[in-house]
């Protein structure tokens, strides 16, 4: 019931921002001998498994398959996202885009294949998933803000409970991130009192406050009224400019063309075509890509 179970992880991620204080880099963050024998003890025994490898790509998906009962939704996906890349994923409804994105942070555990985040194998049962997930921001189509908390609390809660930041520190970071997404007031209201565009921007700030190494977006503007789409895309554009590694499932071809560094077209659980967004959109090579694009463009 309590978050005591997290205590053992606190030493690893609590004292600063990600990457800069990996157990191997910062000896003071090594779990001490007194902490309960669970994740922390294992961490010190097998540092290689839990420790991000700075030279490994942020996201690597190897031969990923996923079935829901009889239905095979992902049929062997291979994909690597390099640092600072903005990979946009497009494809018809039901082609498995969301499932692919959700497998990256194990919201949807794969049936077979591997997902490696900064070299850490997410399918290894010994890996502390929560620790890795804290470094992967995720933005949902339906925002999924916590309705019973104020905007500010939405952005501070995980900082305090996961990163063990103090309330003051968390609120400072929250205000900074909210300002970054263009929200400087209404921090004390509940999400229901915000417009959809504002809610989605709060959701982005909530993820950013964790100092993620990469961000996943699952159709972040699909639930928005048309006039609110722009403000969210603007925030994402700035994020991409700042060098954030991003994987974006979207129907916004304009965004993909302008901001994307790579475009992936999926259909029926496989990657049909991928390449430079401008080239793929202007000159698709595969028949299925051509037919999809002719419908949406």
């Amino acid at each position: 019931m309590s978050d005591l179970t997290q205590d053992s992880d606190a030493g690893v991620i609590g004292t600063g921002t990600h990457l800069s204080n990996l157990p191997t880099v910062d000896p003071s963050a090594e779990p001490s001998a007194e902490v309960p024998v669970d994740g922390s003890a294992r961490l010190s025994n097998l540092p290689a498994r839990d420790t991000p490898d700075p030279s490994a790509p942020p996201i690597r998906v190897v031969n990923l398959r996923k079935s829901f009962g009889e239905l095979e939704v992902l049929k062997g996906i291979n994909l690597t996202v390099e640092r600072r890349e903005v990979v946009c994923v497009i494809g018809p409804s039901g082609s498995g885009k969301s499932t692919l994105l959700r497998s990256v942070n194990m919201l949807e555990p794969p049936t077979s294949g591997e997902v490696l985040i900064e070299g850490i194998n997410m399918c290894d049962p010994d890996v502390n998933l929560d620790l890795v997930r804290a470094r992967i921001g995720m933005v949902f189509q339906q925002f999924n803000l916590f309705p019973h908390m104020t905007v500010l609390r939405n952005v501070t809660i995980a900082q305090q409970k996961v990163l063990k930041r103090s309330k003051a520190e968390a609120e400072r970071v929250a205000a900074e991130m909210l300002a970054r997404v263009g929200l400087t007031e209404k921090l004390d209201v509940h999400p229901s009192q915000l417009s959809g565009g504002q809610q989605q921007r709060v959701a982005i700030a909530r993820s950013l406050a964790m100092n993620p190494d990469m961000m996943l977006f699952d159709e972040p503007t699909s639930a928005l009224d048309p006039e609110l789409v722009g403000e969210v895309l603007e925030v994402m554009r700035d994020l991409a400019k700042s060098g954030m590694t991003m994987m974006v499932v979207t129907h916004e071809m304009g965004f993909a063309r302008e901001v994307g560094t790579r475009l992936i077209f999926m259909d029926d659980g496989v990657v049909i075509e991928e390449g430079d967004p401008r080239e793929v959109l202007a000159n698709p090579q595969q028949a299925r890509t051509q037919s999809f694009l002719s419908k949406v463009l």
Partner: protein
Amino acid sequence: MASIDIRPTTRRRMSVGAWYVVAVGLIALIVFTADWDTMKSQFANGEIAKALWPDIVVIAMWNTIWYTLVSFVVGTVFATLLALMKMSSGPPKWFAIGFIELFRGLPALVTIMACMYVIPIAFNGTKIPGGSVGAGLVALIVVTSAYGSEIIRAGIEAVPKGQREAASSLGMPASTTNLWVVLPQAFRIVLPPLTNEFVTLLKDTSLLYVAGTTIATRELTSFSRSWLTYYGNATPLVLGALCYLIITIPLTYLVSRMEKKFAVKK
């Protein structure tokens, strides 16, 4: 029948008016047929009321309130644990299912008697601390946790899946997610049935009489009952009933205000 063209507002006023006529009629019927002198001495006897004061409040009502609060608070904590266990897997799940089915299936009275008499016999004289009240409270806690767990489980399941996913994606472990994200929303959702549970419990504290009560441990019902027998007069019962309403009516009001408050934020 010819349809008469009446405006909706007028029609509503007419139907409300009809209800007033019925109510006034009923009251008049009671007023004119009842034997008022007998009623007054039998149900609202001032002498008896004076004799019961202040014990009816400082002992009986106070006992009812704290028996209810203790059983409700502790019972709800266990109910939450049971609900989470039932939604997990393996032995905790089986234990939760067995516990819930057993104590939902038994009358509360039987559970109370079991705690009083069966446990000491079965476990070689082990007695629940706190005497008969202690045993009774343990029984009420057990009953409340069994009923409450199903209510709370329904609440947990009603929290959208995306909430848990958002929390997970932020790196929150399951325990943190439950404590800060899922349960607070679940409790808001099940506030009305949980209030029912509270009111049921308030009334079930009267079952503690089977545990045998002393002057100091009597709650409202046993208090009223014993004075009813003593005086051969229903005034203690009427006062006891009033005390229950003094608790439940403000509670209902408070809860409906809380619901409105949550509804705004939701």
